[in-house]
């Protein structure tokens, strides 16, 4: 039995592409599932070479595989504003991460992850169906504080 290094799942923040009613990773071709998502080493595709750590445990310090998230919500905003034009095609949210986790200076890479909440911060569009699909609350953000959960899935 492995002894855990921390006492509970790690909280992270990230954004996704919104595509055909699903959350899709921004860096790789992956549609997020409701509930637990399990990381694999990246395999060869037209975007990537097969991870040199394949088929070892995921993630490894030396590779870039695993589910990514920022450790603070503010990092999500900063990176998003640098990389993307805000639009209705992106969704920000909170995740819980566990299993093998590699800590980074601004976030984490994890073996297992689940969507924990969504933030309807990029427009006024109705995200209720998306929250229902992933069975998570929509949390309203005001002045950088998460203040109101106005939909609870389930």
């Amino acid at each position: 039995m492995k002894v855990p290094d921390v006492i509970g799942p790690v909280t992270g923040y990230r954004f996704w592409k919104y595509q055909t009613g699903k959350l899709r990773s921004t860096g790789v071709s992956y549609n997020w599932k409701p509930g637990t998502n399990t990381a694999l080493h990246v395999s060869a595709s037209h975007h990537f070479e097969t991870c040199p750590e394949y088929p070892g445990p995921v993630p490894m310090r030396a590779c870039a595989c695993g589910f990514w998230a920022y450790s603070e919500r503010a990092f999500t905003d900063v990176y998003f504003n640098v990389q993307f034009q805000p639009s209705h095609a992106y969704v920000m949210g909170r995740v819980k991460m566990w299993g093998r986790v590699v800590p980074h200076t601004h976030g984490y890479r994890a073996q297992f992850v689940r969507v924990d909440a969504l933030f309807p911060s990029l427009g006024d569009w109705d995200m209720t169906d998306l929250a229902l699909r992933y069975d998570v609350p929509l949390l309203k953000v005001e002045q950088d504080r998460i203040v109101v959960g106005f939909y609870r899935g389930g």
Partner: protein
Amino acid sequence: MTAIGEPVSEPIEVPEKEPAELEPVPDQPVDVPVAEPVGVPS
């Protein structure tokens, strides 16, 4: 440098549930050995 910065350690093991979410461990009967009476020299 990546969006989440540089790795700062080797992978750590993180449990899925908080301790409060874990199933309570039922009380198990414990066999307590009874000490043999010790003779006291008279």
